[in-house]
């Protein structure tokens, strides 16, 4: 309800970055009914924001009046909707509109930034003058007009979320509640949280590009609370994607519901594992959190151009076994982390970070790419018009390896399997990272034995990469609604992995003697 306050100091430690599953989406968006042919003079996005070529050119000229290497105008309009079902009824809705333009001027690694929610020429010019103050040089040549690039088609939808009424979502939420409750007599409460959003982005750049993108996002979450005797347990599951309403099929929802119920009920039998170092098997899918924390953040080039990442001097070096290949890829259709263009207007695509065990490429935005003398990797992202972009991940995963899941389990004499997660964090310079395991299993004598719960796991990025001794052939992306936080900015991401064995990690546990 209140405007976002400056809370970075209390929440994020130095040089650290966090991935979490918050209760709600932090914003995102959708596509209008027709695919936009953006190469028209009367760009529908320009009409949407009430801006024409001349106004954009005038603001760009003011923004770069004291010099610039690069500069951009980032127009954004996001309409989001949330619904809450608790105690059998949907009695709370929330909707939000976030609209504004961010103005950025960059000289070398220096950035001037301002934004305004008031899209009048006078307000935009005032913000442009404020942002331009970082520079002290002379006026640069600016475009008279901006050339629209072709729209991407990674998440085109036929029905925008704006056209899906509460009356359509209500029965789906009721279905989720009813189905979950029917699964076990011990289930006392079921809560369902719905989130969808339509986001429109238009980026005008100093080199004359006009990039537009419609970004849909939706997520359904179910929370299950069950009671046996004096003991209560809660579990949840969610699914999220850049999708439209019809994606939430009964089958897909039922899979989510069964996962939430299973995760909840197993906790009545689950124990805390013993504490200390042991082999850790990461189940396929959500365990991609390992890659996000152990290597992904450390490969973001803002840290590396400053020399503050543990990976700063490792490009070209062997960091893992030859069967380990780790990729960040934005052009995977409809994934939560997917992007047609990044938030600097560069085409987003595939970056191989580790290829056959060799460290290959960082994730670059324009500032770091210029410093390294290479093309940007399309990894410049921002939470909204209120923030300047920085290198971020999109969909991060490991490719298939030569082993099987069964071989991996059979290879462990005494260790654990990690299956579901709530959050993770990394210390960029030291390389220490953690993730919190909500559900998992003990492995004893090559066999899966008792269920476990609620343990934090901690390791060191480069050391853990070296200790990936087996990689199975069952890679998949997780469909959960992951959100990554860095320097106070949240962006949606995806992650995935095949079943892998890390030969040694430190497992939080109890019953220490």
């Amino acid at each position, binding site marked *: 309800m209140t405007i976002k306050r400056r809370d970075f100091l209390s929440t994020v430690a130095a040089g650290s970055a966090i991935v979490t599953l918050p209760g709600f989406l932090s914003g995102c968006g959708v596509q209008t009914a027709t695919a936009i042919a953006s190469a028209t003079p009367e760009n529908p996005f320009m009409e949407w924001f009430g801006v024409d070529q001349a106004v954009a050119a005038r603001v760009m000229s003011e923004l770069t009046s004291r010099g610039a290497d690069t500069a951009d105008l980032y127009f954004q309009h996001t309409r989001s909707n949330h619904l809450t079902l608790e105690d059998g009824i949907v009695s709370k809705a929330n909707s939000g*509109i976030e609209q504004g333009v961010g103005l950025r001027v960059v000289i070398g690694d220096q950035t001037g930034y301002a934004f305004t929610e008031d899209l009048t020429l006078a307000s935009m010019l005032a913000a442009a003058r404020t942002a331009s103050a970082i520079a002290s040089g002379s006026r640069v040549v600016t475009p008279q007009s901006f050339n629209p690039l072709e729209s991407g088609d990674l998440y085109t939808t036929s029905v925008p979320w704006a056209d899906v009424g509460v009356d359509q979502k209500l029965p789906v939420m009721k279905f989720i509640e009813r189905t979950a409750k029917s699964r076990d007599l011990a289930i006392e409460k079921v809560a369902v949280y719905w989130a969808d959003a339509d986001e429109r982005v238009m980026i005008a750049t100093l080199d004359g590009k006009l990039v537009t993108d419609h970004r849909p996002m939706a997520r359904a979450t179910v929370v299950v609370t069950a009671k046996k005797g004096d003991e209560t347990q809660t579990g949840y599951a969610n699914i999220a994607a850049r999708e439209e309403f019809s994606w939430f099929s009964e089958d897909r929802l039922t899979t989510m519901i069964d996962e939430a119920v299973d995760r909840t009920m197993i906790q009545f039998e689950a124990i805390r594992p013993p504490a200390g170092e042991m082999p850790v098997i990461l189940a396929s899918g959500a365990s991609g959190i390992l890659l996000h924390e152990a290597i992904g953040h450390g490969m973001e080039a803002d840290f590396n151009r400053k020399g503050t990442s543990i990976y700063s001097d490792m490009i070209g070096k062997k960091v893992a076994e030859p069967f380990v290949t780790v990729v960040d890829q934005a052009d995977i259709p409809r994934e939560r982390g997917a992007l047609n263009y990044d938030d600097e207007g560069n085409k987003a695509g595939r970056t191989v970070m580790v290829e056959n065990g060799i460290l290959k490429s960082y994730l670059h935005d324009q500032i770091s790419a210029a410093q390294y003398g290479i093309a940007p990797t399309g990894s410049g992202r921002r939470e909204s018009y209120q923030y300047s972009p920085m290198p971020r991940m999109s969909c991060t995963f490991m490719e298939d390896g030569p082993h099987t899941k069964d071989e991996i389990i059979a290879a462990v004499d005494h260790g654990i399997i990690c299956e579901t997660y709530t959050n993770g964090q990394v210390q960029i310079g030291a390389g220490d990272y953690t993730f919190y395991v909500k559900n998992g299993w003990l492995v004893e004598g090559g066999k899966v034995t008792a269920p476990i719960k609620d343990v934090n796991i901690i390791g060191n990025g480069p050391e853990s990469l070296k200790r990936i001794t087996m990689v199975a052939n069952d890679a998949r992306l997780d469909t959960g609604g992951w959100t990554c936080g860095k320097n106070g900015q949240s962006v949606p991401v995806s992650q995935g992995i095949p079943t892998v064995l890390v030969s040694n990690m430190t497992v939080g546990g109890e019953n220490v003697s």
Partner: protein
Amino acid sequence: MSADLTTQALKAVELAKAAGADEAAASINQSRDVTFEYRDGALEKVKDTTSQGLGIQVYAAGRYSSHQTTDLNPERLTSFVSEAVAITRALEPDEFRQVTPEELFANRPDVDLDLVDASVADISREQRLAWCEALDAVATDHEKVISATAGVYDGSSQSASVSSNGFSGTRQSTYCWYGSEITLRDQGDKRAEDSFYVGGQHIETLPEASTVASTAMQRVLSRLNAEKGPTVKAAMVVDSRVAGSLIGRLLGPANARRVQQGQSYWAELVGEKAFSDKLTIIDDPLIKRGFSSRHYDNEGISAKVIPIVEGGVVKNLYVDTYYGRKAGMAPTTGSSSNRRLATGDKSLAELLSDVGDGVYVTSWLGGNADNTTGDFSLGIRGHMIENGEIGRPVGEMNVTGNLRDLFSRLEMVGNDVYPYSSTLSPSLVFAGVDFSGV
């Protein structure tokens, strides 16, 4: 300016009523925020913004919804509010959704909280640069420095809130923070990094920038050559600077929403001696210059001092009007303000000396807790406590247990309250904690 905001908020409430709402409440916010970041001898980032937004809560035909927008164009605002009312009508009725009753916003305190420093608006570019340079000078004056970023963050915010049943209030505050984040070359490819920032509503209360940077430097120097510590059951001393985060986890489910939803280990604890008698936590919204001080909460409930835990006995939970009605609990406030912990009479050094051997935690890394059961597991960094003194730096360790059990083993609290937080906690000493490491 506040009068102007109040007028705008009233207008939004009128729009909602005109569109068919039975009751409505609205808030308008405005803020200005300036960021200066300075790295390795040069200005790296300047961000200077003004922002605005409207939030509105709608009650119609026994139904409820809330909405917010940054688009205050009068024409579009009118359609936004009528759409908000239409969305509300599409929901299911809920007898517990009611506008905050008048008696809860009666007797609002008017004590001066002193949250505004008029000189913040006049901070010059030269002043911010001077702070940056003073911070940077200390941080870069070391052979192992790879990179150091100095930051200055200042600004102001104001808001006005009104409701259709007579609530009206305004808030205003300023802030100024600065500090440094430093990365040093460590063993192999490792970098040691840490930071220290100070802040407040008033510039005059801040320590010298060079002192702040020196603290950041001492913190990161103490991290050099850190190694994984042992798997051990030992005493844990939590530094006051990071105790607030642990208190936040403890209190996470201490509210009517979690209790009513069956997701709180606090459900049966009111009136019980649930924790060590060393634990006292008071929610105090009326602290002069407190980081979360206020005259009313986000529902308009008049601020008052609320004991949460006294001598280990649970006195109150955080109860908002909706979940309070649903759970049959009288409302206190649904959102925390400042949290004051009882202090002891010993310094950190005396606590460490009394403990003798154990682990001194100076920061957390990830981890989580289950609100329903209180089970937790957290990553930590810190130092071994050896012979009553701060020993070798350790990291890559976890601490694991149950929050209720942990706080029943709170053995000592210090006198060293960390001031730059809305949780005013001293250092905390716990007995018999499970650490995992080597």
